[in-house]
């Protein structure tokens, strides 16, 4: 029982981070970006390449920090990946999305669709289809609770790290949106673009900032996915449905909604694995999605429009 919750929270924290970026682009750029999952996958692979350049993937390695399977090189690689992913996203925007913005949301959705296809298959082209890992080291799960307490609880240090850093990131994004000038400008643009423009906010500046934040969060989430599961070119495609389910569940544009939505989707997936079997895991997000569309299509924490 506790194990299902813990596994769900780990899955959910990855989904949450991806969903924050998606919900921001959804509400500020006003289209559902089917390429967002690919940003995560590219971020994960950028980090792998950086790690290889640091020469830090050799088994074990003295540079790993005590309980974790990785050390400073991975953190540095994640930072490099975040920068590269943000640049990739900005390049894609100026090459494709910005030129199509006048044609309406659905054209952008189709474009994001084509972009996702190209990005995913380029990953397959560059890295091959074989799953890869940041570290060859096997990590032993630590028993936090014995079996006698509600079925026990085992978790790897890496998973704890992901949970902790995800929480820190979410709080950081929240503070940024609430306190900083740019964050306020983003929220204003999300609520009413015309009014925001009248108030002197440069919409292009806000759009670029949104892409950068979405790209950075996607890269971090991608690295987490690579760390807790594995790296594979379909990483983005497999996460797309959970991401959308989380965004709609939380209400489009709501950061905390995306976080809660991501955690709920993660818990649903984890429960599905234990109850129905791992092969139907991907359907859990779909069930959540259909349920929320039937019951409350505006999501749990919809921003007032």
């Amino acid at each position, binding site marked *: 029982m506790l194990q299902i919750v813990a596994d769900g929270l780990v899955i959910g924290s990855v989904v949450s981070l991806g969903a924050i970026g998606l919900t921001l682009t*959804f509400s500020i750029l006003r*289209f*559902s970006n*089917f390429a967002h999952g690919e940003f995560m996958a590219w971020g994960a692979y950028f980090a792998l390449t950086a790690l290889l350049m640091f020469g830090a993937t050799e088994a074990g390695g003295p540079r790993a920090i005590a309980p974790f399977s990785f050390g400073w090189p991975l953190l540095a690689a994640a930072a490099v990946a975040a920068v590269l992913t943000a640049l990739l996203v900005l390049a894609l925007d100026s090459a*494709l999305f910005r*030129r*199509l913005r006048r*044609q309406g*949301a*659905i*054209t952008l*959705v*189709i*474009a994001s*669709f*084509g*972009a*996702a*296809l*190209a*990005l995913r*298959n*380029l990953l*397959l*082209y560059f890295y*091959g*289809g074989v799953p890869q890992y940041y570290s060859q080291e096997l990590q032993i799960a630590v028993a936090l609770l014995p079996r006698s307490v509600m079925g026990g609880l085992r978790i790897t240090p890496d998973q704890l790290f992901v949970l902790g850093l995800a929480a820190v990131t979410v709080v950081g994004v929240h503070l940024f949106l609430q306190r900083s000038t740019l964050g306020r400008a983003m929220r204003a643009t999300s609520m009413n673009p015309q009014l925001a423009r009248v108030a002197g906010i440069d919409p292009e500046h806000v759009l670029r900032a949104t892409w950068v934040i979405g790209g950075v969060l996607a890269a971090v989430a991608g690295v987490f996915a690579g760390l807790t599961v594995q790296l594979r070119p379909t990483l983005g*495609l497999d996460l*797309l*449905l959970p991401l*959308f*389910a989380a965004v*709609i569940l939380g209400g489009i544009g709501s950061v905390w909604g995306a976080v809660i939505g991501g955690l709920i989707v993660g818990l649903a997936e984890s429960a599905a694995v234990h109850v129905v079997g791992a*092969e*139907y895991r*991907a*359907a859990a*997000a*779909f069930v959540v*999605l*259909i349920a929320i*569309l*039937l019951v409350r*299509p505006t999501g749990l924490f919809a921003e007032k429009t």
Partner: protein
Amino acid sequence: MVDWLAQYSGWLSYGSFFLVFAGTYAIIVLGLNLQWGYTGLFNVGVAGFVAVGAYTSAILTTPDAADRIGGFGWPVAAGWVAAMGVSGLVGLAVGAVALRLRHDYLAITTFGVAVTIQLLATNLQPLTGGTFGMQFIPKPLQGWLGTGLAWNLAYLALVLALLGAVYLALQTLVQSPWGRVLRAIREDEAAAESLGKRAFVFRLQSFVIGSMLMGLGGAVYAHFVGYIAPEDFLPILTFQLWAMLIVGGSGNHRGAVLGAFVVWGFWAASGSLLRGWVPQAEQARAAALQVALIGVLIALMLLWRPRGLVGETVAVSRSE
């Protein structure tokens, strides 16, 4: 002389093969065009609806098999009608949930439907054969025509006749008052509603008819190849079909059919180029590049020629 004849029939065989696929895709793209081109409904799960049709017909028409449920030995024609029916029902369910909401939701829901159908096809082994797929899907009239070129050509004639029938039916449909309402809703929903046209009902009808055509295309595909597996209905199929519609020009039936033939030709040609030029070990990577190319093709068409090769025939005064 015999050599020449053999080569000639080789070309004919390949040609009929190519055209059967193109014709099948054209039927599906016509369904997609009704949904997107005429109604503005963005379906990202086309492969799922195609798979439902293929599997429905396969389950109903295959002979009884010991290791799985199904195998009812129905006549092929009945299987095709059932394929349309079941795909239409899936369309009805999806539409009932998602068509009342903002249009992105339909895209997301249909994407989820395709993922889920893929999952079911892979894991409901007793019904679908799992990853091994279903074999021995009957090829109609094979008892008379044998397995050779004659059958291929006969099937081609059947597909083209079917395509013609679908084309004419849709042409009649969109020129009828019903079709005018569809376009009115697509252009200005509030105005159409104010004239007493319930947008949701018309959208749902269009979505279901489009889904039925996708199911029909799936069944036609299954009975031509004789074998289906979950990997035949991956998201790449959806992308290919979208590329066909966008390249050909949505909102125009001629464009949809033209796009199916052009993009399938482009796909087949680039595929055989890759096979010929790229060494064996690199073929999987090269195939990935080929798919990436389709993605770039969609993006370039949107940027440079958003109306496609043919484009929509402007029939009524438009608000822009």
